[in-house]
């Protein structure tokens, strides 16, 4: 597998993707909702309605480091703090998953729909170069969008929350680990699965419908965080990262093994 050829596939696909608003719009809109709407919703609505009993239950299951952070906060401050720095964290795993799923679904299925796939498969680019190049074009923009969303979210939370908390509350080590370690690993899982699916279905829509399944485990993390069953603290994040990296390697190997030009050509409408 040659790096210059991976970049060649990446460059070609990126030129196509960035000129396709059907693909670019969801990539930009979803992160905008997450990074702007979520902090605005919490910090611009003044009162919350949780009882002190509910709050005590939540605080009890928090790690010590977080408990120390909220010492001296009133109920409203605690709720806002927990929402902004804890509960919303796994939502940022959805950004790369959803952004990349649109591009990854289009990877091979889009070429089949536009009838360009045969010319591409006829080139001397290897199976690995084609597959990894296609994955790269889904991975890079989705991670850029995720990082930008995180920067915007952090800035909004710190600016809008300064009067409420009296200090900047983000970024935390948990957030940095989620964005820099877990998000890329989860993103690769989603992309690899979606690219494999995209190569084996006839059209973009079919690929996208199947790729939505990748959101299920991420929603599991969201629910786990909300219910306090699986809190994203540094140890958990690193363990999850290792698990996802292992899954990524396995999926990539399976995907490369399954990649067959003939199979792809047989799925042209």
């Amino acid at each position, binding site marked *: 597998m040659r790096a210059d050829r991976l970049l060649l596939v990446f*460059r070609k696909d990126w*030129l196509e993707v960035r000129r396709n608003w059907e693909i670019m719009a969801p990539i930009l809109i979803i992160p905008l909702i997450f990074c702007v709407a979520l902090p605005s919703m919490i910090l611009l609505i003044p009162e919350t309605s949780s009882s002190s009993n509910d709050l005590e239950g939540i605080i009890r299951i928090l790690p010590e480091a977080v408990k120390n952070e909220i010492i001296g906060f009133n109920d409203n401050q605690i709720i806002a703090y927990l929402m902004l720095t804890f509960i919303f964290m796994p939502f940022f795993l959805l950004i790369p998953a959803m952004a990349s799923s649109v591009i990854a679904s289009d990877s091979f299925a889009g070429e089949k729909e536009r009838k360009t796939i045969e010319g591409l498969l*006829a080139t001397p680019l290897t199976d690995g170069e084609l597959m990894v190049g296609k994955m790269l074009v889904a991975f890079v923009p989705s991670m850029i969008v995720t990082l930008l969303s995180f920067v915007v979210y952090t800035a909004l939370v710190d600016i809008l929350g300064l009067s409420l908390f009296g200090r900047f509350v983000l970024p935390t080590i948990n957030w940095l680990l989620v964005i820099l370690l877990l998000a890329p690993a989860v993103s690769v899982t989603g992309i690899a699965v979606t690219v494999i699916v995209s190569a084996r279905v006839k059209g973009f829509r079919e690929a996208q419908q199947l790729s939505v399944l990748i959101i299920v485990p991420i929603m599991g993390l969201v629910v786990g965080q909300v219910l306090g069953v699986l809190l994203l603290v540094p140890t958990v994040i690193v363990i999850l990262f290792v698990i996802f990296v292992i899954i990524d390697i396995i999926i990539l190997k399976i995907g490369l093994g399954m990649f067959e030009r*003939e199979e792809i*050509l047989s799925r042209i409408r």
Partner: protein
Amino acid sequence: MSGIEAEELSKRFGSLTAVNRLSFEVGTGEIFGLLGPNGSGKTTTVRLLACLIAPSGGSARVAGFDILREPLKVREAVGVLTENPGIYDRLTALENMEFFAEAYGLRNKVERDTRIRELFEFFDLWERRGDKAGTFSKGMRQKLAIAKAVVHSPEVLFLDEPSSGLDPKAAKDIRDLMERMSRQEKQTIILCTHNLEEAERLCSRVMIIKKGSPLAMGSIEELQKKLRGAPELEIGIAGVEDGLLKKAAKLRGVNSMKPGKGGVLIFDLDDAEVRTPDIVEELVKAGARVKSVNIIRPTLEDTYLELTKEGSR
């Protein structure tokens, strides 16, 4: 060395046999026509030889490389114009060409740019190089598709309906390009086409296939002779009389003679080219007033239609 050597090449998709034990050789620099009705297996044969799909049986060497053991080498050595132009509508013509040139291994930028410019100028696309391919007419898209297929000067070129959608001038340009590539650059060309006139004009040999099996292979002349025999001689005569008909049928070298419409006599001769002057002279001596003389050769179209008509094979 042969450009292509196929030995018992077969491809089955489940119970359907798309290509059935095709064996043929195409010499270096030869233009070889692959003819047959829709669904006859032409595209599958090209896909097998271009290493896009694997054969179910048999083997082949393309540009000296084995399609089973060296598929990457084969893909580097061949250019393919598929049924669909396969160009990226959201990329400009230049971006399309740069991508395929690099994918086919033209890594040197100066060399790449020179080759792209040469092809764009040949196809009258230079002025439109910065326009998105999606804005191009069908003919321009076809030209761009051919340009991308030949950008790396492949040793073997597979062209599926290259003149489809082109105006007469552009179609002639493509034919000239094919002839130049074959004669001067010794590139082997496999031409899949329904345009029999084009095949007749360009191909040194053709193979007619139907339902994946070869029906006939050889030069155009060989196929014509094989199917329809020797050319016939048609002589138009003013005022044909019974006496003249009897004399004409007995002329030397005439195997048979039948009257046609409008005073035309149709002669079956062993060698029409050689015998025609004598026949005309003898008819004139016998009192015939000759209006016209034509040697009628069966066309490739006649041969093709005869071979591929329902019920044959």
